[in-house]
């Protein structure tokens, strides 16, 4: 069982992320051109969306899948409330910063999910494609909870930009490409897969290495520039909150009797923190919250934690609860 965790930790994907992280912290001049980086992000969304769609076309829509989707949405609504409570209890963050930070921990990181998918495949555990749809469904409910939590202080919320907020949340690139690719994969099924697998399935692992090198650089630079803004208790939150979220998801997986691969991916989704969709939404909805706190925490602390330590732990727990 621990061999699986070690193999995940020492996979090229994780090692390239660590290389980027260390290079970013050490002020290396490695730079992935911005256009390449944005192209890689769209490629990854398309690849993971198509993969999920092809697998859903093969398996169909079952009662278990619907149940997992509903539980994913409920988790995304619930987790920010828990995160907000823990932040207010353990840190000195003002309520608006705590609410904005909590939103990140109810939403998901699709790159963490992609990395977990690769780790689960590497472990030889079967996983179902519908979890990509669960990932898309878990992107936004957390934002609603955060606004409700912060809404008690009307001065801290920006009420004048609902159109911009809805547009940002519903039409951000990751949601549009991910959901679009999922539907295309679902509709085209096996014949569609045969046409595109040479571009979107076989090279995924190698492209992910390049993308995670860039993510490591971003995380390292973000951490280097922003760590002074974080109290030790806040940094601690960035490490224990994923474990709290994963524990709740593990309970859901146990109740629904999910196979270990699916359980590990659901735990990863719950444990991951957004750093793309939610920060942009928070700048519109809660502009007085400090981005230096929530971005540094989600990208500089929680993302590296999940990628290096969290995912192997979630796979181990998933194997244990699945018997």
């Amino acid at each position, binding site marked *: 069982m621990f061999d699986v965790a070690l193999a995940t930790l020492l996979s090229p994907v994780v090692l390239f992320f660590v290389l980027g992280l260390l290079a970013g912290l050490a002020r290396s001049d490695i730079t992935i051109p911005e256009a390449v980086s944005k192209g890689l992000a769209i490629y990854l969304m398309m690849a993971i969306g198509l993969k999920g769609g092809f697998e859903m076309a093969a398996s169909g829509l079952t009662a278990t899948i619907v149940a997992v989707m509903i539980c994913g949405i409920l988790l995304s609504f619930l987790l920010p409330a828990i995160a907000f409570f823990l932040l207010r209890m353990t840190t000195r963050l003002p309520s608006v910063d705590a609410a904005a930070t909590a939103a990140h921990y109810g939403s998901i990181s699709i790159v963490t999910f992609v990395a977990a998918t690769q780790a689960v495949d590497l472990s030889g555990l079967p996983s179902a494609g519908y979890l990509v749809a669960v990932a898309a469904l878990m992107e936004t409910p957390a934002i609603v909870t955060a606004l409700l939590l912060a809404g008690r202080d009307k001065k801290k919320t920006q009420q004048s930009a609902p159109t*911009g907020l809805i547009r940002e949340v519903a039409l951000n690139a990751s949601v549009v490409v991910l959901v679009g690719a999922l539907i295309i994969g679902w509709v085209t099924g096996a014949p569609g897969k045969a046409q595109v697998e040479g571009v979107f399935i076989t090279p995924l692992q190698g492209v992910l290495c390049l993308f995670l090198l860039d993510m490591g650089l971003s995380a390292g630079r973000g951490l280097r*520039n922003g760590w002074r803004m974080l109290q030790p208790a806040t940094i601690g939150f960035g490490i224990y909150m994923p474990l709290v979220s994963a524990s709740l998801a593990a309970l859901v997986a146990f109740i629904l009797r999910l196979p270990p691969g699916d359980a590990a991916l659901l735990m990863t989704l719950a444990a991951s923190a957004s750093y793309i969709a939610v*920060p942009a939404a928070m*700048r519109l909805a809660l*502009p007085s919250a400090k981005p*230096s706190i929530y971005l540094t925490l989600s990208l500089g602390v929680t993302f590296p934690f999940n990628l290096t330590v969290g995912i192997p732990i979630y796979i181990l727990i998933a194997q244990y609860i699945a018997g």
Partner: protein
Amino acid sequence: MEQKKRLELIIERMALARARDILEEAGLTGYTILSAMAGYGGGRRWRRSDLSTAEEMTVVISIGDEEKIEKALAELHKLLEAQIGVLSVTTVDVLRPDRF
């Protein structure tokens, strides 16, 4: 040569749409938007991220008559109460005053 006012607004990307609306509603005939690379503020360095637009900053430059700039300033001031940004106005000489 004739004197006009030059408005320079550095504002976060997420508030750019509102800033553009304000300039157009004030009757300014033109503006230019530049993307900021990196900077320092609020006690930390920032740089344009390829991951999230949340940290992106933009620079908006517009030149116009004083009354139009004053009209825009009142609304931009309200916008900057919530959003991150820096606003400055300078007097400049322009070659073709009829264009502004």
